[in-house]
């Protein structure tokens, strides 16, 4: 099959294979990791009998392939779990129950995902504006004083840890100047205006870190394009510098910026742990770190798969955007 439907189909198949491979890896890693999972799950004050009971309940003594088989079954067909007295049904796609809270991982994902998506989508808009804007400016003013200042500022941006930037922003904006309340997550569906105001600082601190990379990439690709022959053509025809930089050179920076952005969006969904922690946003990243600490395998697998899904999705979207930006690209 060719054309766009074929592309979507091939990517979907590729995504499923990738995600299954990721889940296998997570299972194997957990299997070989030292430490008594039942003891950790039960708590430090549990008696050996209680620990054994927990191990039975969680099927921890089953061989690896059997546990993975149960996981796949749950994913495709759903599963029933007995938690002591009651039986709870977990419908497909079922990632299982959290060892810690007996909560369904699917539900957990649905509560955490909106927070992460809110954070990343807003931050992405900001880092693209800040990063590409700075990059264009420094390519245009190349070799001059203002360019050196811009380069210095963006370098400082990358070099400063997010908790420093975020903390300073919070202390100054919310504490000293009292321009905003201290951030607290409000769902978009509850109150869009409060959602935006509360997320403004997290967006800004995440964007400031990422923007530097975009600025440098944009600048570098534009300078590369500016050295190409077709730019010489337009110079030789009297086209002004503004149009040469803003129209012809900027276009050459699209492809690398799209690629970097796909990468960053994908990784920020689960990787913005510091920002989430600093501003108290209950997102995927925080949950994942917590689950790893308490060896909560179902939660870890669920969260990792969600992150993997967004990485794959972001890259597929990037490929489509490539083809839109450059007509020579053929989707395969």
């Amino acid at each position, binding site marked *: 099959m060719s054309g766009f439907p074929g592309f979507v189909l091939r990517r979907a198949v590729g995504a499923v294979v990738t995600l299954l491979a990721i889940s296998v890896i997570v299972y194997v890693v957990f299997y070989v990791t030292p430490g008594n999972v039942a003891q950790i799950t039960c708590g430090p004050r549990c008696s050996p009998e209680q620990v054994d009971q927990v191990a039975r309940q969680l099927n921890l003594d089953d061989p690896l392939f059997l546990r993975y088989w149960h996981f796949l079954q749950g994913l495709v067909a759903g599963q029933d779990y007995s938690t002591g007295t009651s039986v709870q049904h977990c419908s497909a796609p079922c990632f299982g129950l959290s060892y810690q809270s007996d909560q369904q991982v699917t539900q957990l994902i649905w509560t955490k995902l909106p927070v992460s998506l809110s954070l990343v989508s807003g931050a992405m808009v900001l880092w693209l504006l800040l990063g590409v804007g700075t990059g264009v400016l420094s390519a245009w003013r190349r070799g001059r004083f203002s360019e050196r200042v811009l380069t210095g500022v963006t370098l400082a941006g990358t070099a400063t840890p997010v908790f420093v930037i975020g903390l300073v922003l919070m202390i100054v904006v919310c504490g000293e100047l009292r321009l905003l309340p201290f951030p607290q997550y409000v769902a978009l569906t509850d109150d869009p205006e409060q959602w935006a105001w509360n997320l403004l600082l997290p967006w800004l601190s995440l964007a400031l870190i990422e923007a530097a990379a975009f600025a440098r990439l944009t600048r570098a690709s534009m300078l590369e394009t500016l050295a190409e*022959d077709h730019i010489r053509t337009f110079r030789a025809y*009297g086209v002004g510098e503004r149009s040469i930089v803003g129209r*012809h050179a900027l276009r050459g920076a699209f492809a690398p910026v799209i690629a970097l952005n796909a990468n960053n969006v994908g990784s920020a969904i689960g990787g913005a742990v510091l920002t989430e922690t600093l501003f108290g946003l209950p997102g995927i990243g925080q949950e994942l770190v917590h689950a790893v600490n308490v060896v909560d395998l179902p939660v870890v697998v669920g969260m990792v798969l969600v992150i993997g899904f967004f990485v794959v999705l972001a890259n597929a979207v990037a490929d489509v955007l490539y083809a839109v930006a450059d007509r020579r690209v053929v989707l395969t």
Partner: protein
Amino acid sequence: MSLVEVTGLSVDFGELRAVDGLSFRLEEGAALALVGESGSGKSTVASALLGLHHGTGARVGGSVRVAGTDVQRASDEELRRLRGGQAAMVFQDPLSSLDPYYAIGDQIAEVYRVHARASRRAARARAVEVLDRVGIADAARRSRSRPHEFSGGMRQRALIAMALACEPRLLIADEPTTALDVTVQAQVLDLLHTLREETSMGLLLVTHDVGVAAESVDEVLVMRHGRAVEHGPVSRVLGAPVQPYTRELLAAVPRLDAPAAGSTAPQEAVLEEAVLEEAAPKGAVLEATGLRREFGRGKRAFTAVRDVSLTLHRGETLGIVGESGSGKTTLGRMLVGLLEPTAGEVRYDGRPHTGVNPAVQMVFQDPVSSLNPRRSVGESIADPLRARGERDEGRIQARVAELLERVGLEGAHYDRYPHEFSGGQRQRVGIARALAADPRVIVCDEPVSALDVTTQAHVVALLGELQRELGLALVFVAHDLAVVRQVSDRVAVMRQGRIVEEGPVDEVYGTPQDPYTRQLLAAVPALDPEAAALRRAERRELAAA
């Protein structure tokens, strides 16, 4: 006042003086060619006419006046008005000279709007008009295409259309046909000729190809090392050159017509020798039967070579000519065994040969990229020796030194790296590497197309000498019909993967049978302006037929 007045122009790039005290004039509507080999400074002069050296770190001295503008003293604004408005430039490489992301019509319209007060719509209409003018069929639709959807010749036409958009008084064409096939080159030169007849535009043509100049201009200025060597009317400079360098340059240009007796061009000795050898009995050394090669699968399958059979005799030179995409390189690689044929077979000495064979070697087109830049040339030449199992370091070194001397370099060059050599020297290294395996057949794929004409003549002479002394059989693959005529005993003309005509050189060039061969021959630029006019007429006839 003249259209162009250049007085005492000098351009320095750091330590290097690229142009040194050059002066010339060009009147309204006249045409001048700057002719020279690479590094002679001719393109630097062209850029100086539009003030393109401003802000690049080059130091420009002397005075340049173009269409009444003093380029040296002009403000940025004045320069912008000059560029494209009064004097427009057509660049060498039509692939890289257009923005790959925008439609061709939009690019032309953008340039037009810089110089004319016009709405977007009017500018777009103007773009279609000039595209139509340069012979792009269905211009309104094609103006929406991106450059990659155009062929090389069409891109060059589009660049000329861009130049025409603002009706400039001067057209500067910097090697406008170098990247094009010979038939396409002829079309582009004919287009420039017609446009000049119609618009009375002045033309400054920069070229390394004396033939291209003879076709297109009234006056020629020969440049060397940034200085003018000889300057005068085209028929005088090309017909009765005064300066020794001009004579040398002209003598090195391979000619399509049979070489005149008593000429001093080095490669003619080769031809005589080849003619002498023709009497000797010869057996077939390399035979190809029913060769076919496909690339890709399914819908994207493409047949590069179809049903080619040929025979190479001992000690002879077989020329293979064709335009880009004709399959000549693919054929050459199959003969050497670098590519497996999809069907058919190659027999060496009567035995089928698969894979590479030390007795059949190859010399590649690009001497820059076919040598590993990180290894010394001695190591590169030693590779085939080591591949044959030679382990004695002393013997390897001695043999490499001998080979280097054999191709006109020094044995002491063993430890030098490719970047320390000129293009011609690098090609000699490539030849030495091919000789290292004691081959009986060498397939040369465009061995001289990247070289200047004088260097080209020396390399061709070397190949001839080696052939005589070592009794080699050569396959000479090239797009340049004149070079092929000079070196070959027999010639095969390829088109779209097939051999359309094959025979002794004199027959094929003298009385071509296939219409395509005739078309190719008519497209080759002639050195004599009168002959050029005749060929132009012939081309028009062929096109009309």
